[in-house]
Each structure stands twice: as C-alpha cells, then as structure tokens.
C-alpha cells in the first residue's frame, strides 16, 4: 500500500493523473470517431457505388487490421505526413507532433469504423414508413434527420455504442507504445523502478475494470433515458 501513497514516495498521484489521461484520450478518440462516422455513414448508405466503396473500404480495412499496426502507422508516419504537407508551403523544419494527438487520432479512426457500423445498422433498422411519412408531411431533409430519424436512431444505437466505448477505452492501452503516459505506460515506469511488475500491472487491471464498470453504470442510465416510451 505504501507504493500507492500520494506524494514523492508513492505512485498514487502519478497513477491518478495517468487514469485521467486514459479517460481524456478515450473521450477525444470517441469524439474523433463520431466525426469519422458522420462522414462515412452517409457514404455507406449512399446510392452511388463509388461512395459506397469508399465507405466500405474504410470500415473493412480498419476493422480487419490490428490496432497496433494502425498505431505504428500513425506514430512513425504522422510527423512525416505533416512535414510533407508543410514542405508544400515552404516549411522545411522538423515537426514533431504530440503523442496525445497522434494517439487519439489513431484510436479515433479505429473507433470511428466501429461507430460507422453501429450508426449504419441503427439507421437501416428504422422503419421505412418513418422516412416516407416525414416526406409526405413536407418536412425538410435536415429537419427530418434531426427531429425524426436521430431520436429514434439514438435509442437503437446507444447499447452498441457502449460496446464501442469499451473497445476504445481498452484500445487506449496500446498507445503506451508511443510513450504517452497513460495507465499502462505509468505502470510500466512504476514497475521498472520498483521491480514490482505484478503489483503495478494488476493495479492497472483494477483501474481499467473500475473505468469500464463506472462507464457502464453511466451508459445504462442514458439507455433508460432514451428508451422512454418504449
């Protein structure tokens, strides 16, 4: 227990901040994922074959390739890509991007692929009559989406989105390979300097369990809220 005390002698405060970092990366990644889902879900549902192909390509490739490989691509390729763009504007200095940004972007793209599938499934399972009825009533396209489709979609999507959240939360442990100090990296550092890996990795497991448990409680409440009337 001494090892977990706050202050200079223990690892308690470091692990606490690391947990906050894990949460911050997960939430950022989830939001980036939503952004990607917003772009790719319409592509997957589009009538045009080309757009369809782009949407399917994204979800198949990302869901078929290990997360770690995607993270390595971003970790090693991220600054190169930015420098390439910068060189087009005449900037040739070395640019290093922050591990937080690369990490949440890599995880975000992965979580986006899962979110896209969830949203596609949710939209497809809404009754066709709902689209037709709102069309007949002369409701504009964007009003139709926000007032008719989205509220019904959320009810269907939330249980599956909670799965995506769990996957995203667990995937953030992989960013530790890039050196971002989140739970896994902090446990690695602590285990290295105290020579007590069993304790620190088990503690990391407990922290992850705590995070998943608490977020499930929160999501269950949301689920109840959105399924009112059903």
């Amino acid at each position, binding site marked *: 227990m001494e090892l977990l005390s706050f202050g200079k002698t223990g690892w308690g405060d470091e692990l606490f901040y690391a947990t906050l970092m894990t949460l911050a990366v997960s939430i950022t990644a989830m939001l980036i994922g939503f952004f990607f889902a917003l772009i790719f879900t319409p592509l997957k549902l589009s009538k045009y074959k080309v757009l369809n192909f782009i949407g399917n390509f994204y979800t*198949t*490739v990302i869901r*078929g*390739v*290990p*997360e*770690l*490989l995607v993270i*390595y*691509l971003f970790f*090693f*390729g991220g600054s*190169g890509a930015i420098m390439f763009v910068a060189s087009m504007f005449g900037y040739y200095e070395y640019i290093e991007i922050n591990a937080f940004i690369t990490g949440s972007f890599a995880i975000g793209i992965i979580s986006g692929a899962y979110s896209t599938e969830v949203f596609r499934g949710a939209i497809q399972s809404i009754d066709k009559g709902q689209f037709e009825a709102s069309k007949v009533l002369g409701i504009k396209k964007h009003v139709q989406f926000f007032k008719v489709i989205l509220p019904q979609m959320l009810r269907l999507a939330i249980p599956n989105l909670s799965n995506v959240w*769990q996957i995203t939360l*667990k*995937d953030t*442990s*992989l960013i*530790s*390979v890039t050196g971002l100090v989140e739970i*896994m990296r902090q*446990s*690695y550092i602590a*285990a290295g300097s105290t*020579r*007590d*890996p*069993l304790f620190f*990795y*088990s503690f*990391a*497991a407990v922290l*992850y*369990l705590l995070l*998943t*448990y608490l977020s499930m409680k929160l999501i269950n409440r949301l689920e109840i809220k959105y399924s009112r009337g059903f």
Partner: protein
Amino acid sequence: MDIELMINSFPKLLNATLITLKLLSLSLFFGLFIGLGFAILRLSKNTFINKFAYCYSYIFRGTPLLVQIFIIYFGLGQIEYLRSTVLWIVLKEPYWCAIIAFALNTGAYTSEILRSAFQTIKPGLIEAGKSLGLSSKIIFYKIQIPIAIRQSLPAYGNEIILMLKGTSLASTVTLMDLTGVAKYIISTTFKPIEVFIVAGSIYLFMTFLIHNLIKFLEKKYGFQT
C-alpha cells in the same frame, strides 16, 4: 512509394505470418476448451460456481489484453515460488506466455458466446430427449452441444477475427510476429506507409479467409429454425 521495399519486405512478413498463425491456432484451441468449461460453469445452479465463472469473464473482458499479457509475462516471473516449479519452463518463454494470455482472453469471450447459445436452445428439444429416455449425459453431448456450436458460429467467427488482431500484441513481449516484423522494418527504413500496406494486406487476406470459412460452415451446418 517505394515499390522495391514492398517487394523485399514481403517474404520477411510472410515468414512472420507463420508465427501469427501458430499463435492464433494454439490460443483458439486452448481457448475453446476454457470457454466451454466456463460456459458450463455459468449454467450451474450453484451460485458460488456461477459467480466465479461470471467474475472470470467479467475481468478478462473488462481489461485490455495488453495488461493481461504483461501480468503473465512480467508479473508472474516475480513470484519466487513459481520459478522453482515445473511451470517455470513454460512461463519463462514469451511465446507460451502470449499463448496463455490469448487463450484465457478468448476463453472468456467464447464462454459468453457459448453460454448465450446454450440458453437459447429451445426447452422442447431437451424435453423431447428426456421423453425418449435418453440420459442427461447423452442429451448434453448429442443434443445441446451440437446445437450450441451451430448457433454460436457467426459470433465465434467474429471472435476469431478479433483474436487474429489480438495476436499482434505478442510483438510487445519480444515475439517477432507479423506486427513485430512490420514494426522492425518500419523503424529501420522509416517507410511506414509501404510496410503498412503490405502487412495490412496480409492481415486483411487472413480476415477474408476466416470470414468466408465461417460463412461456408454456417451454410453447411446451419439449420432453419
């Protein structure tokens, strides 16, 4: 685009794919038994056994696979007592540590898949077996297990693909699997995109094969309800 590097790295990556496939098949093999065992425990009427199996699957599904590998590879080596037992022959090898972690992990997911498959078997089928005078052992092995396996095929196919992606974590404990070799080539040549395309295509090809194999099995053994 460095086409030459892509062609040169292909045989190296293909060689590493063998290790990935070995890891995958061994962990799936052990995982299936673990999963079946825990699924049966979950169905037990004894609350203690039931809770124990539930905790197992909750813990392994609620923590990242990376933590599980690190606990087994770095953590267990710390226990002095273990070092003196026969188990140490297995636990000092990163290869077996990875397989143990993967098997326990996939076992937890498999137990959930099988449990729900067991629970959705129509009670009428079991009652029919009973009224024919079959013993409960025969009902279990000849009626419940075959139906449960059929019903869990699609979900198990997903689990195989998840496990294939999971084996990439073996590279964090010094194993040179497909991802490990890809990382090595990336870090020596600094050409991440080319290597990603080659390694990614190999992974996608394997996912494609698994996906189609499961589809084929579903068609062959599936039945209309």
